[in-house]
């Protein structure tokens, strides 16, 4: 096998040469190398002549520099330098360290030398960093089902953000709206009512409203006018408290506009049995594969249901992720037609 001795590895061969570990071929190659690179011979103190007949001895400093450190050796002036380096390298056992410390303290020159050795310890400059780590990184392979689920989540979120045009219907229905829609002959604008009768508009909760409306629908006063306004939230209704009518405490009358069609539609909307109401359980999941896949992956409850609004029934959607629940209801088309 050809041996390749270079400037980078010649010292290892030199060490083996001194220890007598080179075979004849290696010794021959090493000799040729040193002859070709005589400048190395000059730099290396005490380099042996390669004429094996010489009895020249190596300089002890150089010998020490290539010796294998033997921790069992006695600490003396000839070996102290090796022990100084060993102490710096932290490879002395406790007994030898004790001996070393004792020797150093008794010899000022060795102590100064050791102090100098301590300064040869190198420390990295942590301010030097590789700035563009991002260029080294690789993309993490995302399983297909996770990608699929991420797309589904984006679609669901987008669906939730789609402005349902139905929401516009939840504007406060003014008397003007009702007039234009149903050609009402006699309509009192809300503002006028307010000013004239010093009414106070109130937004009440669903159950209260339904109750009150039902009560007021039994009122047979022909002069009553119905004004119904709906806020942007479904199932909330605002109405006026007329001062011309006798009212019981916490009970409000509605001014009825006597339009049979409006009245009919309103009755159907505010019917006592809430037949327009669509429970979540009756909504259907349009993407069961996605929700089931996500559910299995993230080990959390996921549910998504939707329903289209019909003439008589609400529509909307329902989304659940763990403890988070979001839902939106859309009024039946009959109600939307009021606009």
């Amino acid at each position, binding site marked *: 096998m050809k041996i390749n001795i270079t400037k980078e590895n010649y010292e290892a061969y030199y060490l083996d040469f001194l220890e007598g570990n080179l075979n004849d071929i290696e010794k021959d190659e090493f000799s040729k190398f040193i002859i070709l690179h005589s400048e190395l011979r000059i730099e290396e103190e005490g380099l042996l002549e390669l004429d094996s007949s010489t009895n020249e001895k190596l300089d002890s400093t150089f010998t020490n520099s290539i010796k294998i450190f033997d921790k069992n050796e006695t600490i003396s002036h000839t070996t102290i330098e090796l022990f100084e380096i060993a102490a710096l390298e932290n490879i002395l056992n406790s007994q030898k360290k004790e001996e070393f410390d004792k020797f150093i303290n008794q010899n000022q020159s060795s102590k100064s030398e050791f102090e100098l050795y301590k300064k040869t310890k190198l420390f990295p400059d942590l301010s030097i960093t590789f700035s563009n780590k991002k260029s080294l990184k690789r993309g*993490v392979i995302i399983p297909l089902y996770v990608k699929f689920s991420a797309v589904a989540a984006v679609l669901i979120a987008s669906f939730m953000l789609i402005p349902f045009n139905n929401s516009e219907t939840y504007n406060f229905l003014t008397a003007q709206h009702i007039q234009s829609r149903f050609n009402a002959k006699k309509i009192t604008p809300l503002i006028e009512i307010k000013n004239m009768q010093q009414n106070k508009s109130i937004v009440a909760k669903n159950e209260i409203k339904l109750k009150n409306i039902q009560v007021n629908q039994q009122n047979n006063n022909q002069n009553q006018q119905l004004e119904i306004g709906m806020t942007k939230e479904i199932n909330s209704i605002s109405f006026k408290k007329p001062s011309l009518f006798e009212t019981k405490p916490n009970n409000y009358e509605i001014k009825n506009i006597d339009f049979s069609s409006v009245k009919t539609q309103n009755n159907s909307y505010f019917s006592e049995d809430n037949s327009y109401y669509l429970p979540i359980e009756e909504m259907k999941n349009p993407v069961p594969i996605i929700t089931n896949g996500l559910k299995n992956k993230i080990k959390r409850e996921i549910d998504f249901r939707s329903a289209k609004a019909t003439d008589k029934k609400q529509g909307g959607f329902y989304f659940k992720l763990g403890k988070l629940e979001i839902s939106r209801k859309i009024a039946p088309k009959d109600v939307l037609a009021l606009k």
Partner: protein
Amino acid sequence: MNAKEYNIAVDTFADNIYRFALKHLKNEMTAKDVVQETFLKVWDKHETIDVSKVKSYLFTTAYHSIIDWIKKEKRSGDIEKVENSIYSNNSSDFLSENNDLKKILDLALNTLPEIQKTVVLLRDYEAYSYFEIAEICNLTEAQVKVYIFRARQSLKNYLKKYELIAS
């Protein structure tokens, strides 16, 4: 080693590899190239690399890249020119202005043969054992000890020289 573990290795060791390369090559662009090359080679074989040994693998790869770069630059003569321009200035003015220990050690480090510089950097910067350094540099443990001992002596003698001049 998967991609996630590889990316963690980038965050953990890229700076170390860069400092190691920079100390050898004394050129930021070349040192960055070595870092890129090193991580590219590790990525090519990431499936066969045990994540617990990625640091050794990185330094071994970086070391070989550095040696290749140095050989290439020595052939073109560039590295010698750099060494001559920076490290031959021995004027007394230069010495008096640069009595900072770190700077002197940097100069001393650059007088060492590459193999000695490598082993002492791996020892001090990365706290590798002799056995680990031997694996990285393809040496025996005994050789590593010798190189470190010689490197320490050279550094000490360099410091001593400057102390004598400064005093």
